[in-house]
């Protein structure tokens, strides 16, 4: 072994500090989800009033199902995003397939609402700029998520960013189910579509911010 490598190893060994929770992403995931939801609530409050107009859920099982599917998609997307921050020989496309499938099913179920709405369409709770809120409210959570994953070792920045963006965008989109008017076309156009756009923003941000080091 040459001298420079020996020297490097000695320096690296001297610089090694104990690691807290090695290889764990669950802690970061829970923290990020809590912050992302908190930021979304704060963003919506800044954009206007927060009136929960559809509650309790058990009276509308289809609506409850839609909402739970949304929650599951958000958790799966965020979990996959943090997992891609850990080096793994598994292809990234295999890591993202299930969360994306869950997201597609969630959007599919909402599209089914065009034929058979979960609730009677209503203008109750209509917000003036819900699409803008759905688009912008997710961005701080996305940036925060990128900063958190950056501390790991992401190898596929664009994918990680896209997953974080989709999760960040889906949170306000899901919140709008409860606080904005209920009409399937409106939901798809003004709540879900801006959420998906946040995914694109995430992909761009991720490819820049989460480049392999």
């Amino acid at each position, binding site marked *: *072994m040459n001298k420079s490598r020996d020297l490097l190893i000695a320096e690296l060994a001297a610089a090694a500090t104990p690691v807290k929770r*090695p290889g764990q992403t669950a802690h970061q995931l829970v923290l990020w989800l809590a912050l992302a939801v908190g930021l979304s609530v704060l963003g919506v409050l800044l954009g206007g009033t927060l009136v929960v107009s559809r509650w309790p859920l058990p009276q509308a099982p289809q609506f409850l199902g839609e909402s739970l599917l949304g929650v599951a998609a958000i958790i799966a997307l965020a979990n996959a995003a943090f997992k891609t921050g850990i080096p*793994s020989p598994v292809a990234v496309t295999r890591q993202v397939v299930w969360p994306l499938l869950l997201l597609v099913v969630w959007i599919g179920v909402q599209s089914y609402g065009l034929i058979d709405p979960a609730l009677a369409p209503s203008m109750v709770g209509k917000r003036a700029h819900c699409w803008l809120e759905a688009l912008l409210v997710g961005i701080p959570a996305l940036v925060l998520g990128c900063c958190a994953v950056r501390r790991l070792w992401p190898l596929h920045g664009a994918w990680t960013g896209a997953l974080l963006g989709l999760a960040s965008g889906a949170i306000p989109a899901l919140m709008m189910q409860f606080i904005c008017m209920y009409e399937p076309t409106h939901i798809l156009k003004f709540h879900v579509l801006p959420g998906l756009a946040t995914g694109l923003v995430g992909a761009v941000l991720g490819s820049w911010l989460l480049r*392999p080091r």
Partner: protein
Amino acid sequence: MNKTFLADEQRWAAWMACAQRGELVDYAQLLREIGAATETYIRVRFGTIDALEDCVQECLMAVHAARHTYDPRRLFRPWLFTIIRHKTIDQLRQRQTWLSALQSLATTESGVSDPDRSLRMLDGVRILERLSPDHREMITLAKYGGYTTAEAATWLGITESAAKARLQRALAAIRKALDNEGLPV
């Protein structure tokens, strides 16, 4: 996993777990073994590349910077070689490395520089850079690294048939690019 792999796996995983607790002697020993293994790995997989030692040291620094992402409950070798693989391919992709490799390839065995050969190599590098990352990776492994399709498939974590299809698509993309520029295929 053969006996050597298994022994390495157990020893390295234990050392890394100790290193994560801050045990410096184990960590230095681990880095020494990883350094030697990385050197062999790069030689076997990528052939003799320029600045091999630089590449090995980059990999060691990458392992050091990523050590907090290793979960001691999981296998160590797949985690390690994912980092080494990405780091090595990154290094190979860097223009400087490509150009220095190009210079050495453009010089004939007798040590005489061949301008035509240099130009052909430059065309090759330029077209390779235009391919998608997946195609470029496949071509690098199969054509420059000299892997078989099965080895490249294992390397990339895909099935052999997917690797074959990816290689065919990559070669088709190169043929198309050469055609578009009126260069001989």
